[in-house]
């Protein structure tokens, strides 16, 4: 069938600059570029271009420009180029539209309508370059009261704490499975988390044997498919996370298509090579909060009560009530993933239309847990569109204990958010299992880039804290008075629990 889909991008090559090195042709897994010997020229099939900019970035002479195809249908606010493209694609295949990464629709980003406070005159600001500044964060249940006694003349804690995760900076790497991303990408995340004293999350794809040595900085996920979940996996983890939902696709399960289940993936997930890895939409042992409690305690029991257990949900309309149930069910950490959260593959309509922005969910959950007097019983971690250090610090002031970053971490490793992760042809060596592509991401370089990102963000957070006259992130947690809204309605301000700027 002839495709009616217009190329989304134009590839423009400056023939004068082009030295026919064929780098672009070799780099593009979508086969856009080719060199024609007879004509001694390089050509492009633009219909295949996904806009990942790998060729543009690597072209040694800056001969390439990739830009949006300006040929569009007559301007129309309803029947946009994207709407038509989707309809043509479905008319030509009869399939469910698939996409990768997070929702790209223009829902309000509340982080950009919230501003931070700073000290002026009274309560002097602090210079983190000279004075101590603490970002250390402990995740886990905190006791209702703390009893301090004395042992040998020294104060000592009498209250027995439940297991905690210690983070040197309140930023962790989100759950991304081996399968969704390459081994090299997983290794980069694991090593960077270890170096920075924080954690990464295996996602639901099990843990590759070679990465067990980073177990102290690994959160192992237990999802509905239970892939790769066995005694060693539970034992090696620093914490366990029950994945109920994910911001990019609340309410639905996932399929890792059989063609991505390579020998190594099959070993890690413990399923035969080439079969679809199907994660059912719900956990079939969890149909209620009581059932959730049962799995939480099953995991605690299986790991001798030595590890915190997190429960991750997608941010949806009644997240606050659900979070309350999760805390009461015995979770040590509640992880919330907002509508902008990324994915390796999700049906487009679900990614773009289901769930709520993380800012509103976070505020609602934190408020609810406080009102019920159970906020101390679990830490709150948020994910789904955290783009920079100011998003982090605003999240913490809104009530989060820490954040998860997924997309930002992949971007640090080279991702250009082309949203084609589900094809398995990621030219940046990230969302692929093709050895030719994945070796483009050198784990040494990936680790360095991630460590640099977290280092930069951590410094910025310290600067902003210092500016507010605060010397520990703990003092900002849930301190919404240090936030103001700009251009928000009263309803939005009420949900966020913040005042408008100027008030």
């Amino acid at each position: 069938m002839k495709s009616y889909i217009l190329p989304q991008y134009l590839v423009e090559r400056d023939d004068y600059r082009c030295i026919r090195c064929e780098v672009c042709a070799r780099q593009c897994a979508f086969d856009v570029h080719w060199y024609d010997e007879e004509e001694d020229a390089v050509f492009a099939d633009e219909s295949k271009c996904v806009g990942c900019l790998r060729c543009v970035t690597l072209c040694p002479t800056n001969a390439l420009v990739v830009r949006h195809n300006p040929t569009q249908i007559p301007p129309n606010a309803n029947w946009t180029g994207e709407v038509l493209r989707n309809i043509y694609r479905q008319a030509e295949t009869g399939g469910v539209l698939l996409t990768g990464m997070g929702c790209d629709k223009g829902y309000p980003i509340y982080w950009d309508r919230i501003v931070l406070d700073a000290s002026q005159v009274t309560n002097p600001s602090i210079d983190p370059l000279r004075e101590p500044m603490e970002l250390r964060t402990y995740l886990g249940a905190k006791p209702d009261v703390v009893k301090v006694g004395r042992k040998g003349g020294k104060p000592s804690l009498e209250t027995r704490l439940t297991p905690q995760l210690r983070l040197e900076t309140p930023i962790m790497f989100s759950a991304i499975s081996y399968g969704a991303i390459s081994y090299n990408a997983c290794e980069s995340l694991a090593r960077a988390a270890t170096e920075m004293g924080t954690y990464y999350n295996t996602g639901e794809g099990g843990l590759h044997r070679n990465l067990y040595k980073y177990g102290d900085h690994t959160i192992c996920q237990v999802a509905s498919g239970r892939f790769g979940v066995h005694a060693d996996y539970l034992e090696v983890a620093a914490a366990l996370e029950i994945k109920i939902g994910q911001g990019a696709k609340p309410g639905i399960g996932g399929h890792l298509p059989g063609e991505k289940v390579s020998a190594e993936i099959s070993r890690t997930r413990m399923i035969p090579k080439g079969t679809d890895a199907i994660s059912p939409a719900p956990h079939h042992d969890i149909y209620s909060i009581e059932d959730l409690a049962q799995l939480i305690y099953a995991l605690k029991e299986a790991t001798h009560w030595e590890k915190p257990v997190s429960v991750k949900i997608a941010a949806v309309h009644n997240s606050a009530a659900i979070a309350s149930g999760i805390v009461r069910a015995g979770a040590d950490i509640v992880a919330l993933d907002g509508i902008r959260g990324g994915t390796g593959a999700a049906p487009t309509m679900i990614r773009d239309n289901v769930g709520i922005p993380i800012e509103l969910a976070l505020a609602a959950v934190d408020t609810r847990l406080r009102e019920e007097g159970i906020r101390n019983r679990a830490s709150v971690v948020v994910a789904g569109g955290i783009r920079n250090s100011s998003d982090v610090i605003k999240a913490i002031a809104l009530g989060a204990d820490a954040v998860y970053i997924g997309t930002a971490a992949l971007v640090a490793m080279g991702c250009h958010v082309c949203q084609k992760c589900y094809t398995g042809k990621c030219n940046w060596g990230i969302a692929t299992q093709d050895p030719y592509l994945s070796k483009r991401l050198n784990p040494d370089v990936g680790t360095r880039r991630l460590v640099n990102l977290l280092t930069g963000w951590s410094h910025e957070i310290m600067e902003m804290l210092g500016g507010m006259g605060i010397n520990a992130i703990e003092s900002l947690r849930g301190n919404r008075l240090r936030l103001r809204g700009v251009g928000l309605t009263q309803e939005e301000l009420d949900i966020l629990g913040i005042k408008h700027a100027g008030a």
Partner: protein
Amino acid sequence: MKIEVDHHAGLPGVFARENGKVRINAGTLHYRELNNMVKGAAAEGLEEIELENVFGQRYIGSGIRRPVRITVHGVPGNDLGAFMDGPRITVDRNAQDGVGNTMNSGTIVVHGRAGDIVAMGMRGGKIFIRDGVGYRAAIHMKEYRKHVPVLVIGGETQDFLGEYMAGGLVLVLGLGKKGKPKLAARHIGTGMHGGLIFLRGEVEEHQLGKEAAVERASEADLEMIRPHVEEYTNYFGGKADEILGSGFIKLYAKSHRPFGGLYAY
């Protein structure tokens, strides 16, 4: 069955210990206390652990990685043997929901019936249930290389048997009924993409999920399942030959890629 509290059993806790064997009176112990004792005994190297007066304590056998033998006198709670890796558990009465949840290796033998989601996500080991089970048995059971889980159910099962099944072997013997058993369950093998289910008797097309295919079990199939049937009759009595000779059907996945064509790439 009437369950009687054994008032003579004394206080909960360990009450006997002799050459490699320990007896624990579970009684009203919280599961955490009970399991701590069981784990402690296993860690000490004791090989046989008898639990008396068990009253619904959950997670028995979970978190133990040695091939200890645990005998449960009474009714264990949900998630018996969840994430289990090695022990052998015998229950002398019924079991509840979640028997062998995400179990990795070991054996569970239940002298009675079991509740819902028996063998959910089970990846290795064996489970034998003398009587019937509830809903969603063997859901998302899977296999990997030499780890092939086996679930043998003596009686009947409810709906969604083998849903999402990705591997392993399930036998439903349908014993205890005269003539050819006729399973009432629906949605059998929905989303099935691996593994095998053998049912004694017949099912009708509408009872199967659309991903499951059915055919009469061959001689080779029967030989393949024979050792498991024999193991069942060893535990619970009956004649393996008689059972095997009375007509089995085999359910298998039409494809190991059930959702291959679903998406528009």
